[in-house]
């Protein structure tokens, strides 16, 4: 069984981004970039499926600028077998990424497409659901447990009230939540080996996809800052403040 894993290059989760002075966009020049943490969980899940003898081949795919190659090399170092880079300098929004991912999935014919539930830059939480829709496949979003069956997969999902398990027919799209697994630490020999694994290039034009953005960002701004309040000495003082000053008790 082939598994396709989509990975996004994003600003590292430890970086606190700043807004450009003209408010036109976020300043991401010279900041550390990494694989979207939820996509790392997706790669890890695919690798575990392969280690368990359930998946035979893992194909990692990423869309975007040239440097996405680095993100794909990370996926290869984690255990993906080969990579596809849909290279473009264009701004890619979730609908466009889903259209590209659909075309890659049609060519590769995987049984599972796994990706993160959301990217930590745009926080959109859309691409997996959109890809499933365009392919006409089932979707297992916010997965915390994946159990492959015969022609189907049982997915336990993190929902607002707790956990929900659904049975999906294959092929299907899964999006990962935090508790699905803990991604492995990539070792140096694997990084070296990953450099020799195949990485193929394609483009939105090759795939016949119009990636024109549908949403225009008019401006970005930092939200109103909270200022630090006061330290109180003990519980008695706290309760007094909450009752008399904040009036929330």
């Amino acid at each position: 069984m082939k598994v396709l894993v989509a990975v996004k290059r994003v600003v590292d989760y430890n970086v606190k981004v700043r807004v450009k002075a003209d408010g036109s966009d976020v300043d991401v020049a010279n900041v550390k970039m990494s694989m979207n943490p939820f996509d790392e969980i997706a790669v890890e899940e695919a690798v575990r499926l392969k280690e368990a003898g359930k998946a035979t081949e893992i194909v990692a795919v990423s869309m975007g600028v040239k440097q996405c190659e680095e993100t794909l090399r990370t996926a290869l170092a984690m255990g993906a077998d080969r990579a596809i880079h849909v290279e473009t300098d264009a701004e890619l929004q979730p609908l466009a990424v889903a259209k590209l991912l659909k075309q890659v999935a049609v060519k590769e014919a995987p049984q599972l497409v796994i990706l993160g539930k959301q990217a930590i830059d745009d926080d959109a939480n859309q691409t997996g659901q959109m890809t499933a829709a365009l392919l006409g496949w089932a979707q297992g979003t916010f997965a915390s447990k994946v159990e492959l069956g015969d022609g189907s997969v049982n997915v336990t999902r993190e929902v607002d009230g707790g956990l929900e398990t659904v049975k999906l027919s294959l092929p299907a799209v899964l999006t990962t939540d935090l508790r699905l697994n803990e991604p492995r630490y990539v070792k140096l020999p694997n990084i070296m080996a990953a450099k020799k694994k195949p990485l193929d290039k394609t483009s939105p034009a090759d795939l016949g996809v119009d990636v024109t953005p549908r949403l225009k960002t008019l401006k970005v701004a930092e939200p109103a800052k909270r200022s630090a309040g006061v330290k109180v000495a003990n519980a008695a003082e706290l309760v007094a403040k909450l009752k008399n000053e904040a009036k929330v008790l």
Partner: protein
Amino acid sequence: MAILVIAEHDNSQIKSGTLNTVTAAQKLGSDVHLLVAGAGCAAAADAAKQIAGVSKVLLADAAALAHPLAENLTPLVVDLAKQYSHVLAPATTFGKNLLPRVAALLDVAQISEITAVESADTFVRPVYAGNVMATVQSSDAIKVITVRTTAFEAAAVSGGAAAVEAVSGAADAGLSSFVSQELTVSDRPELAAAKIVVSGGRALGSAEQFKAVIEPLADKLGAAVGASRAAVDAGYAPNDYQVGQTGKVVAPQLYVAVGISGAIQHLAGMKDSKVIVAINKDEEAPIFQVADYGIVGDLFSVLPELMTELSK
């Protein structure tokens, strides 16, 4: 054109996020329709028609809709959406699962988790864990939107008198089925809508201590219980307690963070709370930078004192 809101419900009751979504919809137009899609959901539709500001309730009652499977709900919503200028749902796991699938089939963008309506095509939404607010304009004919529920007041649950119109055509797409669920059973208020939230972090040290220390305080205050990602990952609290960028976003009157350091991902989920209290033994913890009132101290000694003070 009218605005369509997809109601989140459990077939008998309307979930609170729907009420906030109705308020967001009213900022787009006066004719707000509410879709109640389920199985044996007449009671939910009955509650829906009384929500203030709803002019029509669309009731789709079919066995295939007993559980909110996106594969079965999507064709129904896509079909209805063509008669509307906007389709909205709460940015809960229900809405986040469903609406992107709807948007893709309509070939439109989805606008995620809006916090403000600037005009019929322009919205404000958080990006980068809420550290940046982006104002975005949609060029699509139909705007498909999820709504951050804490950013809009809840519509009144009574006062409305909408007509109920049956919608047919829902079918099983044959792609997915419901197997089981493990829902957290609690008499406490719903986390996302609670007036007071008490959250525990890694410093609690164990599930037993989380239960023994956080829960009594929550019950004393009539509060919902939340947790940091670290506490959930460590198994101290269930996943649905997680407050943060990728968990639940809360904005209560009072948020009490106990033993939570305050990573930006956690702050993203609670920094719009009216009053924030932090109890942490690390004076340098980032949580104190957003807290209105902080106590530097060991939670295991501060919380019993707090319980005593609250009992006075």
